[in-house]
C-alpha cells in the first residue's frame, strides 16, 4: 500500500488499521522496525487514527476477543537485585495512579505480584487473567530464546523464565490472556539473520498459546521511556467504554514521543513498542455478560458484634491477601491467621474476608461470625 493510499484512507475513514504480516518465507520482515514508518509529514505509528500491528506467521487469526464479566488484570513486578536497578518504584506509582480511577469500578479487577518468582507467576497464570502486564528485565538468548528476569529466594536474585516455559504456563491457564504486555527489553525482538528458529522471542512464543494481543519491544528500552509508554497506554485503554488495544498502543507511543522531560533520542524510542495481533476485525476487548441462568444462592447470615467495622467502598480491597487466604482455605486449612504490625488493616481485612464469603459460597457456609477480643475503633480516611 502506497503512502498516497494511506493518506486517502485516513481522510475517508475514522481510523486506519495497518497490519504487517510476517511471512514464513521472509523471516527478516519481523526484524524491520515498521513502527518507524514516516509518511513525509509524521511518523505513521504516532498518528492517533492509524493503528499499526503485526501478524506473526503461524498465528491462527481470530475475529474478535471478548472477556467475561470484568477485565481481570495481573500486574507482575520483578527487579532482581543482581541486575541493574530499574527505578521500579517510580513506575509502580505511575502505573498504579493510572489504574486508580478504575479501581473503584466493578468492571476492572487487579491482582499484583511484587517480587515475582517463577512459582508465583505460574500459579497466578493458572488462575486465568485477561491482561498480564510484566515489567522488569528481559532479553533474548541465541540458543534458548527470549526470557523474562524473575526473582528467586530471599536475596531476590535473578532467575530467567524462558519463553517456552512461560508459554507452557499460559497453555495451562484456566483461559489464555487476551493481552500480554511485556514491558522489558527485547521481548519481541528477533535476530536479523537466521531462519525460522529466530522466532523464539517471548512475545511470539506467547502468541502461539492463543493469546490474541501481545505488546512487546523490538530491542532495548529505556526505563523512563517505558514508564511514559505504559502510562499513556493504560490511561487510554481504561478510559473508554471498550478496551481498545491498538488505540491505546498508539496513545502510549504518543505519550512517550510528546514527553517534555525526555531527550530527543529517548522520545524517538516510541518505535520500540509493537503490537502483535491475531485479530482480524475486532480491536477491542469486549466485555460480555456472565453466563445466564445463574443459580440463586442464599447469602450466609452475618452475625457480628457492634464493633464490626463493616465493608464499603471506603476501604481498599486487599485482593492479593484475600487470594492467599482463599488458597489456604482451599488447600484444606481450617484455621488461618493473618499477622503483622498494627495499623496495616488486619481488622478491615477480616471484615473483607467475611464479605467475600458472602458472595462466594464454595465453602458451604451458612453463618458468618465476627468477634473482637478487645475493642478498638477503626480509622477511616477522610473521604
Amino acid at each position, binding site marked *: 500500500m502506497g503512502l498516497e493510499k494511506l493518506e486517502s484512507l485516513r481522510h475517508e475513514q475514522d481510523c486506519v488499521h495497518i497490519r504487517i504480516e510476517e511471512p514464513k518465507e521472509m523471516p527478516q520482515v519481523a526484524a524491520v522496525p515498521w513502527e518507524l514508518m514516516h509518511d513525509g509529514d509524521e511518523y505513521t505509528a504516532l498518528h492517533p487514527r492509524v493503528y499499526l500491528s503485526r501478524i506473526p506467521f503461524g498465528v491462527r487469526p481470530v475475529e474478535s476477543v471478548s472477556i467475561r464479566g470484568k477485565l481481570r488484570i495481573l500486574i507482575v513486578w520483578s527487579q532482581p537485585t543482581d541486575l541493574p536497578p530499574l527505578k521500579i*518504584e*517510580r513506575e509502580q*506509582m505511575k*502505573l*498504579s*495512579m493510572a*489504574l*486508580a*480511577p478504575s*479501581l*473503584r469500578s466493578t468492571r476492572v479487577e*487487579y491482582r*499484583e505480584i511484587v517480587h515475582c518468582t517463577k512459582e508465583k507467576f505460574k500459579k497466578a497464570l493458572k488462575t486465568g487473567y485477561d491482561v498480564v502486564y510484566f515489567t522488569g528485565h528481559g532479553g533474548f538468548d541465541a540458543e534458548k530464546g527470549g526470557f523474562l528476569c524473575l526473582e528467586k529466594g530471599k536475596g531476590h536474585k535473578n532467575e530467567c523464565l524462558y519463553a517456552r516455559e512461560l508459554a507452557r504456563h499460559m497453555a495451562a491457564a484456566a483461559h489464555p490472556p487476551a493481552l500480554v504486555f511485556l514491558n522489558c527489553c527485547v521481548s519481541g525482538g528477533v535476530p536479523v539473520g537466521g531462519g525460522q528458529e529466530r522466532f523464539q522471542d517471548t512475545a511470539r512464543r506467547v502468541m502461539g498459546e492463543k493469546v490474541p494481543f501481545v505488546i512487546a519491544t523490538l530491542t532495548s528500552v529505556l526505563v523512563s521511556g517505558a514508564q511514559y509508554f505504559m502510562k499513556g497506554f493504560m490511561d487510554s485503554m481504561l478510559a473508554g467504554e471498550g478496551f481498545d488495544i491498538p488505540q491505546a498502543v498508539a496513545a502510549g507511543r504518543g505519550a512517550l514521543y510528546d514527553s517534555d522531560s525526555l531527550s530527543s533520542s529517548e522520545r524517538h524510542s516510541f518505535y520500540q513498542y509493537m503490537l502483535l495481533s491475531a485479530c482480524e476485525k475486532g480491536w477491542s476487548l469486549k466485555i460480555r455478560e456472565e453466563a445466564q441462568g445463574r443459580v440463586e444462592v442464599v447469602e*450466609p447470615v452475618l*452475625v*457480628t*458484634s*457492634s*464493633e464490626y467495622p463493616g465493608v464499603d467502598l*471506603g476501604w*481498599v480491597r*486487599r485482593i*492479593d491477601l484475600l487470594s*492467599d487466604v482463599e488458597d489456604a482455605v482451599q*488447600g484444606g486449612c*481450617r*484455621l*488461618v*491467621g*493473618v*499477622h*503483622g504490625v*498494627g*495499623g*496495616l*488493616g*488486619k*481488622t*478491615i*481485612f*477480616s471484615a473483607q474476608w*467475611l464479605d467475600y*464469603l458472602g458472595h462466594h459460597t464454595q*465453602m458451604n*457456609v*451458612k*453463618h*458468618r*461470625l*465476627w*468477634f*473482637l*477480643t*478487645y*475493642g478498638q*475503633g*477503626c*480509622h477511616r*480516611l*477522610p473521604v
Partner: protein
Amino acid sequence: MDRAVTGSLYEHFIGQIRGVLRGVGQSSLEQTIGDSVNLDPAELARMLIKVFGADCACVVDNCEALLDNADHFDAEQVMRYVRALATGTKWHFLFTSRETFTFGREGREPHPVRWIEIEELLPTERAHLLSLASGSGEFNFGDFTEEDQQTVFTEIAGHPYELNLFIQAAKGRDDLNALIDEIHRITSRYARLDYYIGRHSVAHRAMLQLVALLDQPLEEKKLSFIWKNAQKQKLETTLAAKQLLSDLKKNALLVESDGAYDLLPVLRHHLLRGESSFRPTSEERKQLHHLIVKVFYAHFEQATQVRSEALSKKAEDGDRVAAWLSRERIDMLHRAFRHSWHVGDLESSCALLEELSDQAAGLLSRHSLCRYAVMLRDIVDALDEEEWLPLHAIVYGVTGKVLAGLRMFDEAISVYGKSIKLAKATGDDSSLGVTYHLLGRVFEKQDEWVKAAKIFLLSLKNYLQYDGNPNELIVVIRSCKRILEKTELTELSTLLDQLFAANPELAKVVELSRAEPTQSE
C-alpha cells in the same frame, strides 16, 4: 508489676458472644452464658454449634490480646475459650494478631494455624487509598510535586494508619515540601508515629498518655473531670479537655465512638510497650494511675449526690436507683483496684480490695459477681506465693467470700486453704481466726456440720490466743453455738462453757446480738 492497664478480656469476649446470640434471637442462651462464671469452654463450643450449625466461618480479631497475661490478667482464660471453639468445632476461622500463635497443648500435636503475613499495601492498593483520600477538598495528592508524590507513595502510603496521620498533618499546610522532608528523614515507622505525636503540645501528649492508660474508652465528661484534677496536680495548661480531645481526634490520634474516646491498639502499644520516646515513666504512670483512682472516687461521689437528689424527687424509683448506685459503686471500685494493682501499688490495692470486699457480695447482681470472681481468681493465680504480703490475705479472703457467695464451694475452700497455709508458713497466724471462720461457714453452707464445727473451734482458739477483735469474736461464738445445735463436738462446747464461765457478760452480749445479725454475717 509494671503492667499495662486494660479491661477484662473475659467481660469483653463473653459480651461479644452474648451480642451475637442476641442477634439471632437466643436471649435465654445469652443469659445462661452471661451468668456462668464456670462455663466450660467445651460447653460453650457445643452451645454455639447448636445455634449456628457446623457450617460457619468465624473471625476472631485482635488475638494478640490473648497472648500475654501481663497485658490482660484474664488473657489465658479467654484463650481457652477461643481454643475450644477452634478445636471443638469444624468451623473455618480467621484470626488476626500482631504475633503468631498455635493451639498447642502439652504432649499433643498442635492444631496447625496457617499464618499469612499482612504486609504494606501493594502499589495499586496504595493508589486506591490515595485516590480515595484525594479530592476531599483538603487533601489532594495531585498538589504535590512528582518527587514528593513518590516519597508519599513509597514511604507512607503503604501503611494505611500512617497515611491517615500524614493526611491530617498535611491539611492546611503551605510548606508540604518541608513536611515531607522531615518525614523522609525518619526511617523507622515507629519513629514516625512519634513524629506525629511530638507535633502536639505537652498538654496534648499528656492527654494521649492518660487515655492510653485508661482501661476502657471513656466519655468526654469523665475525661474532663480527670483532666481538671491532673491540671491541679502538675500540668500547667489552660487547655480544656474538650479542646484537646477534639484536636487529637481530628489528627487521627484518638478515635471516638458513641461519645467515648480511645486509642487504636497500634498507638496504645507504641505508647505503653513500644519504643516511643513519649512512653510515660513508671513514676509518671503511677502518678496518673493514682489520679485516675482518685478521680473515679470523686466522680462517683458527685454522681451519687446528683442521683440521690433525683432519688428524693422520685421516690417510686427508689429501688431501681439504689440498685444502680450499688452497681456503679462496685464498678468504680473494681476499676480503681485494677489500676492500682496493675501498677504495683499494693497499699492502694489493699485498701480498695478491702472496700470491695465489704461491698461486693451483698450488692452485686449475680452476673457482676461472676465477672468479679473471674478477676479475683486470676489475681490469686498471679500472686507470688513465695513472698508474703498483706495483699495476699486480703485477696484470699475476698476471693473466698465471693466464690462462696456464688456457691463455688470447692474453689472457695481451696483459696482459704492457700491463705491458711501461707499464714502458717510465714509465722503470721494472728489473723487466721477470720479465715478459719470464713472456711467454717463454707462447710456449714454445705451441711458439713462436723467439719464446720472443727474449723470454728480453730477460729475461736485463734481469737482467744491473740485477743482478737471483740465484735468479730462475738460473731464467731454465735457461729459456734449455731453449729453445736446441729452436731456435737465436745472440745468446742467445753471451750465455750469455760469462756462464758470466765466472762458471764460475754454470754449476755452473744444472746442479745442473735436478734440483730451483724454485717459480717
